[in-house]
């Protein structure tokens, strides 16, 4: 599904290398977690994969089912099935949440040469998905993320994910700022989306989220590279011992 090879990325505006030869492969149907200390480049990875401005790829490649992501515009990557759940979802005043969702869904369908979803079908779908995430009809009417609580914003990201049905989901610290109940809702939402055709890359600081969303593989990222990969037990080890020992171990 997602294959990253020897990725080197620097900031466009200054001479600062963030990713230094990162390689990673997420096969279809799997959930991979990336953990790592602050400043290791986790968020940069999610932005580079989704095509945000401000980064320059100096070396390496990233492909989605063999198609090079790095040559595509952000919206082309989205239509190809790449989704990023933002760490800080953006507020768009005046634009109704429902309007936003519908515009996004139809933009992707159009890009893929599919017919637009009818109002009736869209409403039915959005109401079902929203109910599963305990998103109230009122939240659907309010402007995108404006005045949403931290938990509401993150649930809203998962609602978008459910509506857009991407094949590759990247979640950037989706657990940050969530209380226990919200975490369960978000995790249930994600788990409901797990399927043999869909993969997840879950970026997180804490093992806690991984209790709810069971990863197949856990990667430890430091200084712009994956330094260690293993099973779910690796996350537990980080939780108990911190990164110090682990990083010393790999040099």
């Amino acid at each position, binding site marked *: 599904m997602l294959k990253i090879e020897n990725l080197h990325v620097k900031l466009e505006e200054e001479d600062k290398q963030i990713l230094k030869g990162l390689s990673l492969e997420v096969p279809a149907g799997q959930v991979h977690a990336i953990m790592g200390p602050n400043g290791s480049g986790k968020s940069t990875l999610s932005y580079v994969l*989704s*095509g*945000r*401005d401000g980064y320059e790829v100096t070396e390496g490649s990233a492909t989605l089912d063999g198609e090079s992501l790095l040559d595509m*515009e*952000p*919206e082309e*990557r*989205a*239509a190809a099935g790449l*989704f*990023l759940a*933002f760490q800080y*979802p*953006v*507020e*768009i*005043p*005046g*634009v109704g949440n429902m*309007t*936003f969702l519908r*515009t*996004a*869904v139809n*933009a*992707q369908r159009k*890009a893929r040469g599919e017919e637009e979803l009818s109002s009736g079908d869209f409403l039915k779908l959005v109401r079902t998905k929203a109910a599963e995430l305990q998103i109230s009809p009122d939240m659907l009417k309010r*402007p995108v993320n404006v005045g949403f609580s931290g938990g509401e914003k993150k649930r809203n990201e998962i609602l*978008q994910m459910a509506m*857009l049905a991407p094949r590759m989901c990247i979640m950037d610290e989706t657990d940050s700022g969530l209380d226990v109940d919200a975490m369960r809702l978000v995790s249930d939402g994600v788990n409901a989306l797990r399927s043999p055709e869909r993969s997840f890359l879950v970026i997180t600081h804490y093992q806690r989220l991984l209790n709810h969303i069971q990863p197949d593989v856990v990667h430890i990222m430091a200084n712009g590279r994956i330094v260690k990969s293993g099973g779910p037990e690796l996350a537990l080890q980080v939780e108990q011992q911190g990164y110090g020992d682990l990083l010393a171990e790999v040099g």
Partner: protein
Amino acid sequence: MTATIDLEVREGVDRETVETVQNMGSYKYGWETEIEMDYAPKGLNEDIVRLISQKNNEPEWMLEWRLEAYRRWLTMTEPKWAMLNYPEIDYQDQFYYARPKSMEVKPKSLDEVDPKLLATYEKLGIPLKEQMILAGVEGASPSPAMDMAIAATEGRRVAVDAVFDSVSVGTTFKEELAQAGVIFCSISEAIREHPELVKKYLGSVVPQSDNFFATLNSAVFSDGSFVYVPKGVKCPMELSTYFRINAENTGQFERTLIIADKGSYVSYLEGCTAPKRDTNQLHAAVVEIVVLEDAEVKYSTVQNWFPGDEEGKGGIYNFVTKRADCREARAKVMWTQVETGSAITWKYPSCILRGDESQGEFYSIAIANNMQQADTGTKMIHLGRNTRSRIVSKGISAGKAQNTYRGLVTMHPRATNSRNYTQCDSLLIGDQCGAHTVPYIEVKNTSSRVEHEATTSKVDDDQLFYCRQRGMDEEEAVALVVNGFCREVLQALPMEFAMEAQSLVAISLEGSVG
């Protein structure tokens, strides 16, 4: 096609309406219709004024009124205080009157109407056929054109007056309106048929001597719409005028007069388009609205005159005087405008709040892209006690455009306990455009309150990236964010206009990013 259709097409319906050109770039109304025209000679003098008056079969008093305006105009100079840069206008290098040649042809039923003309209206978004369907052929689909119309209709009823160059070409639903006592016709017809109303109210809100452009209009206005809603009548449908400038080098000077008698209500929509040309065209309209006791008028405009190309070549010079007079107690007026077109916009729809407890509202979206310049805003003149006004202005600048909000709020000594609230937001797209806010506030009593809020912001990169990550392309993302910015104003528009305005916002901003 049945004979029960209530459409009276008056003059100027030409058989030579040519197939229009699709995909002429971002300005989708940029096609022209090839029609043989009757022109008055170029230039302006008393003879031209006489000729216009004569062509409209006007009575002597109207001619005198025009001539008085013309003589006054000769003594006036063009105002230069607006933040607008444009080359000197040669007023002698214009045609002041043009009308389609085939005047004698007056089809009485749809059978006689050129389907190509209907196609032209369809392109303009004029819901003429919608009226026909609702006027008696509901469910019937006797032609492909009708099928299209059915597909386009949302079942709303709107009476339409269409003005093509200088001439009003058709008004729909006249009979049904007449049953309610509402007069809706071209102003030239009103001058002939309802002289007592025209004499009483024409120039009573915007006098002949008001300003350079209004005075010019008073001398040479060729046509426009007239509305009278009698006492206590709620107009049974929305009224609408679609203006189109077609002929080259021709100024358009329409004059609209709306009178809402005591306790009445009317909602009026105005749409404007013009072909793409690389020369500038002059448009100087006057709209007068008289609102009497307890009456209410809503006036909505979607102005989409051709804005000129990316380099600033061509486009309409739009100098418009619009004013409503809340003449008696508790009169209420609401202006809503979406200004996306014109190379130059000089326009300040105003409210005179003369009656006690009268109310004025102004909601505006002004978009300027490429080389467009807009200097627009409103005037709220509080004269009566306990009067209220509200201004919500959203200015969007992109490309190299300059967008100025210019507003005046005056509280006169007698206007005690009055209030105004002004909100003035500017949005910038790119780094070569400008937004300017020039509010004038005069308060001459101690019990009134005026509030003014203003913001200026840029379209945020994070917002655009968020939208694009969800699959929208850059222009779609900008349109969505801008529509959000304009939401309060879009909500003030009648439903069908709101939809049109939303897509217009998107079209107007094409090419503004990336």
